[in-house]
């Protein structure tokens, strides 16, 4: 059985269905990229300005140093993940020629977004535990 290639009109129709997502996708991609960039800058600057001991001599400084480093690395990873989504949005131009690459970037985004989400979940739990341990008891 031979498979006939789909007609040109169908290709254009398919590509246009994906094109409808372009604006929302790019807005969210730039929002995410900006947020992770701000987070990386904020934590790196905060760590430098508050004078965390990067030698990590004490146990408490070591845990703070580890959490800050992990947050910075996760933010850099987040920037890369959202850069994939920006590239995907840029490639969605309504033509069928760039659709395979756009879908490849889209696949890369979701694959790495699940890893990023898992990392953020872990960091959130570690951060909350760290914060609860160091916060004073509430007043009655």
């Amino acid at each position, binding site marked *: 059985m031979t*498979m*006939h*290639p*789909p007609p040109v009109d*169908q290709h254009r*129709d*398919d*590509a*246009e*269905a*994906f094109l*409808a*997502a372009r604006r*929302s*996708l790019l*807005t*969210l991609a730039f*929002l995410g990229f900006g947020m992770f960039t701000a987070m990386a800058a904020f934590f790196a600057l905060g760590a430098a300005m508050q004078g965390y001991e990067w030698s990590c001599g004490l146990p408490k400084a070591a845990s703070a140093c580890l959490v800050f480093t992990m947050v910075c690395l996760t933010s850099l990873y987040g920037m890369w993940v959202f850069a994939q989504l920006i590239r995907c949005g840029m490639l969605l131009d309504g033509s069928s020629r760039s*659709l*395979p690459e*756009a*879908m*490849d970037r*889209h*696949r890369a985004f*979701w*694959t790495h*977004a*699940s890893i990023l*989400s*898992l990392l953020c*979940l872990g960091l*959130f*739990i570690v951060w*909350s535990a760290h914060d609860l341990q160091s916060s004073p008891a*509430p007043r*009655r």
Partner: protein
Amino acid sequence: MDKPTTPSPWAHLRRTRGALIGVTVLLVLWFVLLTFLICATTWHAKGIYADRKSILQIFLSNGLMPIWLGSGVAHYHVGRKLLRLARQTNELQDGTPLRPAGEAFSSLWKANLRAHLLLFAFVFVYWMILSQR
């Protein structure tokens, strides 16, 4: 010599299915974590108020409640769209029209943007309330 063939959009979309299901599971995990946080802070406050307030009163007056409700709606909305796209990609065969998958794709990204904007609005309101205390 044959040219190296690049995978088709059908192949890429089919390969996205696992990640889409994985992200849906993670959405549920995030919501469970937030629910746990609400319960933990309510339990903590119960110790402070002792018998002066009922557990329901404390639960409803919890500052995290709007975020919990907002994220519940957002997670449900996005999770449904993620699963719709995963279902569409599962049914894709090479050469079949991509339009149904394209519509699910557009619907997912529109819902995702709306859900994130809603969540950011709730977090912003919570942060404003906290900073005024």
